[in-house]
């Protein structure tokens, strides 16, 4: 988080403190309302109501941790969590590896760099719905990739990650990587461009190979860039919803359900608000668990330095 802390602006002294900067205060009302009412208020409200037995409408019949017990007893939630775990860990590792490799390739002073960059980044401009539907069609078992490869003579070729419950999550992963790696590549490229040319000269003088220089010198130097990328990828993974709805609809069966979808299904379709609130509170907890160590590293370290 690059929140630059600039020196406070000195203003002319006015008699009353409340009316000092009155216009600025009035102009900030939308921001204050958003921060306090929607973000703090809305989140608190959801957490509080997750301890009620609300069904169709929010009610204050307190049930303690019942909703959470029911949540962790539900197969659907467990499947959602597992799916998010598999998708999340694969997506994190592969996005970082592919993103960095592509950025390193583009940084080798090649020709047509901007053309390649444009190609790698364009999926990022598209909606997850568009991405999901495009890959749904390519992975269609009857007409898509599987059919084409079989047509080439490999009759037993089996690649059906839309309708096979065991591999459906990797079908989502293919689409998700297609959409998301371009962004990470861009960030990594910016990071690589920020590295001093002298580092490369020094490595060459010492006779260290290109790959070795990347792994042992450049990557450790780019730690902040990697941290930023990780936070971006992680916050994207938790939000994963549109892609699933468009590409698989959570199917076959419940095989590609994810937590974000669980929340919305229970809040707006199954009319079981309490379950939805409990599930979304769990999502909030997972974000907090990710954010606190990061905030500690980012800001705790800065203060000490």
């Amino acid at each position, binding site marked *: *988080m690059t*929140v630059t802390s*600039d020196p406070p*602006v000195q*203003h002319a002294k006015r008699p009353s403190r409340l009316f*000092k900067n009155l*216009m*600025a205060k009035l*102009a*900030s009302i939308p*921001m*204050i309302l*958003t*921060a*306090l009412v*929607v*973000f*703090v208020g809305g*989140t608190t409200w959801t*957490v509080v109501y997750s301890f009620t037995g609300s069904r169709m409408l*929010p009610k204050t019949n307190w049930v303690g941790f019942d909703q959470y017990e029911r949540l962790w007893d539900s197969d659907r939630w467990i499947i959602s969590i597992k799916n998010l775990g598999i998708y999340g860990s694969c997506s994190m590792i592969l996005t970082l590896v592919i993103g960095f*490799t*592509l950025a390193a*390739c583009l940084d080798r002073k090649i020709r047509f760099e901007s053309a*390649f960059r*444009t*190609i*790698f*980044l*364009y*999926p990022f*401009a*598209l*909606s997850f*719905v568009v991405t999901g*539907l*495009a890959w*749904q*069609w*390519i992975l*269609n078992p009857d*007409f898509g990739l599987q059919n084409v490869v079989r047509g080439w003579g490999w009759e037993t070729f089996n690649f059906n990650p839309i309708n096979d419950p065991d591999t459906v999550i990797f079908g989502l992963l293919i689409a998700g990587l*297609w959409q998301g790696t371009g*962004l990470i590549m*861009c960030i990594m490229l910016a990071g690589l461009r920020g590295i001093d040319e002298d580092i490369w000269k020094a490595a060459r003088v010492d006779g260290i190979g290109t790959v070795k220089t990347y792994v042992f010198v450049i990557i450790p130097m780019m730690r902040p860039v990697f941290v*930023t990328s990780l936070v971006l990828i992680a*916050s994207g993974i*938790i*939000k994963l*919803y*549109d892609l699933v*709805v*468009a590409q698989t609809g959570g199917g076959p069966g419940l095989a590609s359900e994810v937590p974000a979808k669980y*929340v*919305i299904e229970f809040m707006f379709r199954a009319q079981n608000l309490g379950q939805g609130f409990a599930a*979304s509170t769990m*999502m*909030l907890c997972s*974000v907090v668990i990710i*954010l606190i160590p990061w905030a500690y590293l980012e800001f705790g370290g800065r203060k000490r330095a």
Partner: protein
Amino acid sequence: MPDMTNSTMTGPRGPKPKKSFSRANIFLYGTLIMVSMYYLLPLYVMVVTSLKGMPEIRMGNVFSPPMEVTFEPWVKAWSEACTGINCDGLSRGFGNSVRILIPSILLSIGIASINGYALSNWKFKGSEVFFTILIIGAFIPYQTMLYPIVIMLREIGLMGSIGGLVLVHTVFGMPILTLLFRNYFASIPEELFKAARVDGAGFWQIYFQIMLPMALPIFVVAIILQVTGIWNDFLFGVIYTKPATYPMTVQLNNIVNSVQGIKEYNVNMAATLLTGLVPLVIYFASGKLFVRGIAAGAVKG
């Protein structure tokens, strides 16, 4: 003999120049071209499929170019495709998306730029606290705020309307846009602001006459960020609108994933491309600025 040594001495010195087709280079370009193909494949397949007739799709290869080019699927996707009982195609969703997009952009960027200006030039007690909450709020999963917003929109009578969705986009666009403008205004020399203050200019006068004209590039970045973000939104559209006001992405999903009727893959792909067209045009037209917008978004992390 002295001539011979002389001629060898005047030859080229230094190491042999690198061939441009060295093994490393071939490997590098080979990798990049292979990866490019993976990235371009879906776009190619979508275009090709949308130009074929259904009989050709049923018998043919998904990668082969169309034998007979037809634009019928595009026309059908735009004006005839059905969602439930409505059969007026994606044009309705397009209209809704435009009617959502324009006020959302104006409102969200207007508010965020004033926020950023107030935060960098007119700090007041507590302003940094609200800003920090705003930024932390950007990381809270939307799911925890969905239902309270439903209640708020019902209270003010905007649930299901385009106005309600505009408000939602303004609220959720605020953290990143405010950060963008705040950092930009903080980079403008303070002397400029002080000079205007000495000359007696007030809050709005400085904003409209000095800051706004200087911030035009960052406004373009903000517009690009918001156009793609709002156009591609699905979650808020599906929750805060009703079928008559569905944005294009929601309608597209309903058309393609509808369980009734025969699947017309060519129409589906034409519809998908139509929905992706607006952000793609923005992307290819804006080039470097898009990257800058993303980088600004990434700074958030």
